[in-house]
């Protein structure tokens, strides 16, 4: 499977009469996007606001972040199975991405898991979306709408708007075109016979409401582990339906821009042979954990992998899946490196993980989510601060009268994301 990804660099975002890209500026027609989202009767109102790097803006409670993309050539559409009814296989042909732009869904909380993005100030350095040009979709649900329906409505609004904004890149000449190419298994193995065969075990969050992820529209709770071409993910084969603890949330943006896949491709054919992605889930029942991790081990053996990287989403319960996958992949003959984040308590003194295995002797840390930070007040809030003290990472007294916040790093979207996207890490003092 071969995908050309055309990167259109976005350096500003503005409202305009039509949604288009001109000289690196993304213009969006506000009313058009609002009308599109309001076709969903579950939503009472929708507002569109813009947030640029350096502005004194706080966005919260953030549900998802999506990079606008459009399928230019090849089968399928973006986010197959999620919007509309088209579920053709994606991952080949050509796709254009508005790099540097995002669509962010926010509004009244569904659970407690939604987070914060600061566009400037001392917290900005922890969040990748403090550096992007953001089109914020603020949704208000109909009175009395159930949480499951509200989550679905907010998720679909984000995907629809991101798709519409992505269309603006269809006929724009990209600043850069990157080609990603993975061959059918036997060919791929034979292409670089001298290099170690590397796979990626991608654990999808699937613990329940606000903890779901979708693969071609299928709730990841209901999948058994499967194997995929890495490029499929770049066309939206995986979308986030979850608001797991904000700091280690894998947003839809992060699925599209999965850093493990990106960096393995960079070294593909140089010092490793990137074979593909084993997709698995993080269900809460022990039987599911056993079945899924057994199948992961079976894939590792069947594919003859020399090494695997494993990433997880969330913490606590999924640490068990992480350790089971680590053990079974090791038993299947692969060398394993884990990528995860840490929750050792506010004093940093407790165990960082909820489970451990001796096989987990190689781990990359994406930082400690429990440290306490001070978020200064911002001139403008997109969304609302009403829920800060009950959002994950907040506590009694977190929100100060001047709008500043004292809270754990956990509050910040994707700040300790456990897939290696960021540079934040932790060491022992």
């Amino acid at each position: 499977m071969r995908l050309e990804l055309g990167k259109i660099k976005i350096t500003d975002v503005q409202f305009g009469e039509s949604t288009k890209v001109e000289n690196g500026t993304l213009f969006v027609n506000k009313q058009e996007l609002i009308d599109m989202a309001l076709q969903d009767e579950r939503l009472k109102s929708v507002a569109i606001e813009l947030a640029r790097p350096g502005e004194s803006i706080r966005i919260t409670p953030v549900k998802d972040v999506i990079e606008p993309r459009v399928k230019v050539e090849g089968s399928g559409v973006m986010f197959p199975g999620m919007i509309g009814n088209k579920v053709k296989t994606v991952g080949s042909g050509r796709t254009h991405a508005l790099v540097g732009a995002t669509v962010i869904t926010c509004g009244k909380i569904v659970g407690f898991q939604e987070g914060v993005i600061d566009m400037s100030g001392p917290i900005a350095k922890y969040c990748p979306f403090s550096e992007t040009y953001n089109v914020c979709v603020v949704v208000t649900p109909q009175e009395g709408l159930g949480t499951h329906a509200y989550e679905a409505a907010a998720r679909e609004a984000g995907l629809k708007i991101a798709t519409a904004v992505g269309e603006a890149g269809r006929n724009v000449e990209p600043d850069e075109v990157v080609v990603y190419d993975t061959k059918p298994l036997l060919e791929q193995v034979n292409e670089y016979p001298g290099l170690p065969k590397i796979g990626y075990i991608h654990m999808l969050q699937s613990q329940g409401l606000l903890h779901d992820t979708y693969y071609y529209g299928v709730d990841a709770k209901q999948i058994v582990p499967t194997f995929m071409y890495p490029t499929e993910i770049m066309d939206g084969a995986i979308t986030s339906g979850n608001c797991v603890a904000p700091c280690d949330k894998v947003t839809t943006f992060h699925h599209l821009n999965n850093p493990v896949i990106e960096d393995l491709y960079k070294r593909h054919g140089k010092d490793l042979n990137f074979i593909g992605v084993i997709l698995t889930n993080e269900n809460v029942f022990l039987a599911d954990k056993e079945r899924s991790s057994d199948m992961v081990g079976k894939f590792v053996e069947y594919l003859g992998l020399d090494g695997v990287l494993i990433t997880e989403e969330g913490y606590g319960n999924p640490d068990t899946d992480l350790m089971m996958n680590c053990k079974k992949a090791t038993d299947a003959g692969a060398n394993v490196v884990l990528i995860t984040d840490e929750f050792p308590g506010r004093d940093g003194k407790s165990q960082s993980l909820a489970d451990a295995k001796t096989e987990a002797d190689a781990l990359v840390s994406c930082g400690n989510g429990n440290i306490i930070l001070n978020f200064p007040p911002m001139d403008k809030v997109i969304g609302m601060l009403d829920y800060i003290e009950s959002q994950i990472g907040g506590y009694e007294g977190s929100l100060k009268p001047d709008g500043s916040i004292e809270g754990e790093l956990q509050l910040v979207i994707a700040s300790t994301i456990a897939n290696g996207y960021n540079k934040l890490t932790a060491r022992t003092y």
Partner: protein
Amino acid sequence: MSKLKVVHYINNFFAGIGGEEKADIVPEIREGVVGPGMALNKALGDEAEVVATAICGDSYFGENLEEAQATLIEMIKQYEPDLFVAGPAFNAGRYGVACGIIAKAVEAELNIPVITGMYIENPGADMFKKDLHIIATNNSAADMRNAIPKVAKLGLKLAKGEEVGPPEEEGYHVRGIRVNYFHERRGTERAIDMLLKKINGEEFVTEYPMPVFDRVEPQPAIKDMSKVKVAIVTSGGIVPQGNPDRIESSSATKYGIYDISGMDSLTSDKFMTIHGGYDRAFVTENPNLVVPLDVMREMEKEGVIGELCNYFVTTTGTGTAVGNAKAFGEAFSKKLVADGVEAVILTST
């Protein structure tokens, strides 16, 4: 700017008041420096000075823990210090433990930074390295000239509220505290390097060695439940509506104890869950799914259990540090035992 004030703690031996035979001397405090305080004062330079030296015999300290601490803290307090230095104790075991105890007490009572120094095999080092900055010294007082400048340098940083560097830079014993920093390369690049090294049999360093957990041996089974008082304890975040004690939805720092006397089940108008780690929708409608009061009441009526405790204990399990969870358990278990509870049903989510 006036100099920062430092109070120094040493034992009778370093104060020049005899050896083992004088280890029972009671606490005293003298103005200015005594013994190794002279070198400390010099190393502190222009920014700080040792205003007083507290002295106590190690035997007296060890045999009169409460009294020695209380007396010493009163003495130290008078000098309004900005920093407290204990030792260094090198490999002197009782002295090391005394330095650890008094330093920890001063930090807690007077709310000022504290520092000490010890050899790695000093039992005090293991006991207090998580709580304190303990400069790593050699095993004898001959190392004083190396140890004192490190104590002074880090002590000054602490007193001035400056950022403390990693143990290998500052010279203190690794405390086991996980601290964030920004690496020059992102996680995936480091992970791929680590993986290739592992495959090639080259040396690599994990960024987080696997933690060790306490394992609790289960109690023997209770043969006859019909005489036993049972309590429900949950990490599922069930609280009265409005969450009166403001228990966090994740990484809890507190637990709650709530009355259920006279109730046959938990009703959704009175109880809710604030847990941030699972789908709350069903439990919001029926809190008995996590605190099974309805079933327990039936069992109580049928005589399956002797009695149900008239309260339940609750916190949020998700993201809650083991250290906090352990402290909660130690605290509420005492109450449960005092209230005659002999069995607990733990529910998680």
